[in-house]
């Protein structure tokens, strides 16, 4: 049994570590490329959202390199994600691939249901080994998140942006190979130091919150690496979604640690009091939260036709006005031209700088938020 799974940001490092801990042979799909996307577009239904298409491309590439088992998360509506695995399995079956699909469904109530599902993935694994595998994978994930935060902090502040990015790439590959907690700690400490020592500039910074659908926020390929583009414009990006939090909320139903979700939902309540599936309510809540923390602007990202994000986008019009925070929505689809996005990000950053300067000059003038929505297809 050779196991594979879809990409999402640096999740492959974590899942690989977990499955190897369960004594499974793992085939990590090749990094997402134009070829991956082209495969997905060719076989996926035309109007489905981008994560399904990229995921399908991942599977095809992984199956071609020898995988025979796909692990995928499920879900129970109303967002389309819950039905991804079903549609993808049908497509791959029709294409003639021989494989089996293991779909991890979030448990209704008991956490033991999830552990059972995980245990079935393992081969001759004792309970102790399974727990150790989960804990080590989690440790890697936490380290990666810490490193990513530092990277996003350093990138806008340094002159040597190329070096900062190189260091991040290095951290990714080193942590992927790390075999012990000690090794992970060393890599992390080393990287922190290197980022600290990069030369700084003293230009004014912008602080931008990135909200939206979880896959598009976490997977740089699907958002044309928006965090990097903004970092190069001296704008510090804060992701509203963290992988650990997302897994805790969705797969472990908040059993692992106390999440920020309660606070975010409370922020969303005046505008959107109930869940609308997917990440809709979190998008609204996080935007309010960013506004209250004094961020300069918020960018909402999502795949084109994402239903919960459309609801959120409509409501952001009001949030933007009432919380005085400029918001911009960018939907991504299979269009891969980067110039359109780059121009819009630059314009947005310019607008935020101008607004900030104006506010500094006439601090009593309260400016209403500006909202504009753009398509990735331009």
């Amino acid at each position, binding site marked *: 049994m050779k196991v594979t799974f879809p990409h999402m940001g640096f999740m492959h490092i974590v899942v690989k570590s977990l499955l190897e801990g369960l004594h499974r042979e793992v085939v990590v799909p090749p990094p997402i490329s134009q070829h991956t996307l082209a495969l997905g577009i060719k076989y996926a*239904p*035309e*109007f*489905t*959202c981008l994560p399904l298409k990229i995921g399908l491309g991942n599977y095809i590439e992984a199956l071609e390199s020898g995988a025979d088992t796909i692990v995928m998360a*499920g879900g*129970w*509506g*109303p*967002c*389309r994600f*819950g*039905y991804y695995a*079903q*549609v993808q399995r*049908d497509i791959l079956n*029709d*294409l*003639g691939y021989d494989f089996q699909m293991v779909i991890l469904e979030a448990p209704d109530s008991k956490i033991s249901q999830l552990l059972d599902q995980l245990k079935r993935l393992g081969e001759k694994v004792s309970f102790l080994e399974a727990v150790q595998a989960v804990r080590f994978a989690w440790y890697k994930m936490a380290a990666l998140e810490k490193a990513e935060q530092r990277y996003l902090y350093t990138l806008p502040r340094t002159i040597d942006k190329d070096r900062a990015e190189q260091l991040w790439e290095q951290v990714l590959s080193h942590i992927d190979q790390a075999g012990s907690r000690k090794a992970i700690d060393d890599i992390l400490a080393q990287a922190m130091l290197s980022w600290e020592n990069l030369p700084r500039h003293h230009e004014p910074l912008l602080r931008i919150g990135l909200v939206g659908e979880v896959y598009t926020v976490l997977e740089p390929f699907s958002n044309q690496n928006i965090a990097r583009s903004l970092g190069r414009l001296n704008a510090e990006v804060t992701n509203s979604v963290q992988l650990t939090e997302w897994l805790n909320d969705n797969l472990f139903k908040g059993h692992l640690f106390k999440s920020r979700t309660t606070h975010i939902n409370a922020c969303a309540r005046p*505008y*959107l*009091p*109930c*869940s*609308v*599936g*997917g990440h*809709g309510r979190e998008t609204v809540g996080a935007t309010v939260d960013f506004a209250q923390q004094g961020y300069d602007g918020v960018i909402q990202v999502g795949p*084109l*036709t*994402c*239903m*919960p994000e*459309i*609801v*959120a*986008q*409509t*409501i*952001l*019009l*009001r*949030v933007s006005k009432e919380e005085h925070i400029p918001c911009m*929505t960018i*939907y991504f689809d299979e269009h891969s031209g980067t110039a359109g996005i780059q121009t819009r990000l630059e314009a947005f950053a310019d607008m935020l700088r101008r607004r900030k300067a104006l506010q500094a000059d006439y601090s009593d003038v309260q400016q209403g938020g500006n909202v504009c*929505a753009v*398509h990735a297809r331009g």
Partner: protein
Amino acid sequence: MTQVGIPRGLFYFYQYPLWKTFFRDLGAEVVTSSSTGRQTIDVGIVHTVDECCLPIKVYFGHIHELIQLRPDYIMAPRLVSIEYRSYICPKFMGIPDMIRASLPDCPPLIDITIDCSRDTRQLWKDIYRVGALFNADRRKVKSAYEHGLQALKSLCVLTRQGYTQHEAIELWENYCLEQAELNSGDLTVGVLGHGYSLYDPAVSLQLIERLRGLGCKAVLLESCPRDAVEQAAAQIPKKMFWTLGRKMLGSALVMDQSADIDGIVYLACFGCGPDSMVGDIVGRKVRHKPFMLVTIDEHSGEGGLVTRLEAFCDMLRRKKVQKLESDLSAYGIHAHCR
């Protein structure tokens, strides 16, 4: 007299008799917006974000029209679920908040939460809350709601005969209706789609009327036997969690096996989440009947649709006469031999 506005969009086509009876019994006057027209669509487009699907845009057009009439309340429920463990669509769950965000000057909304995914306790609580707006006691509210459910049943009797939900509502309201030629025609075509796009003639560009005009008898989801539909829908490995999607899939599978259906037409909306998945699954599973998927958006040129429908009907007729063609599926093993 208290006026309650009911917009002629979305679940109007499924629930209008229920809410009209309910509010009338509570002593309110019910006003509706006029039938969807080009004006409705244009206004709706202005007041929604571009990415919304057409039915939502139309709905906002109706809300905008109702606002001009200044009723005391507008009925805009938060529709989460109408049956156990199933949902409608995320956009329906945010409707009242979306209205408040883009049409700030609207009258108070009756935004009860219809969520039967776990139980109906919350629903009843909300219904009593609405009743309190009209100073009705619990018994009166309960009987009004039950009266409303009865009205829905009488609507079902009409739709089972082959009338669309839209026609059935017109008949129920005793408006004169040109007796539609329901059971004539040499072809029988199954027509599927979300009711709020399929049964709104302005949204579907009169798809059903056109098919009838081309000599087809239109078989709709509502006239399929319910048990058979549920049984067929249960065949797929994971139960579909969209109520309407599951019904469409089940009906498609029933139609696929039924001898007197010549072909199946599926009306999808551009940007509709469930349609993007269900349309594909239906296309994959329907192996014995010609299948056509039509996608609509606010584009109003009907020439393209007319041509496709005519071509589809011509093909069905030729297939009937010649009996030579095999049932080549658009998907699956056959398709990949090419």
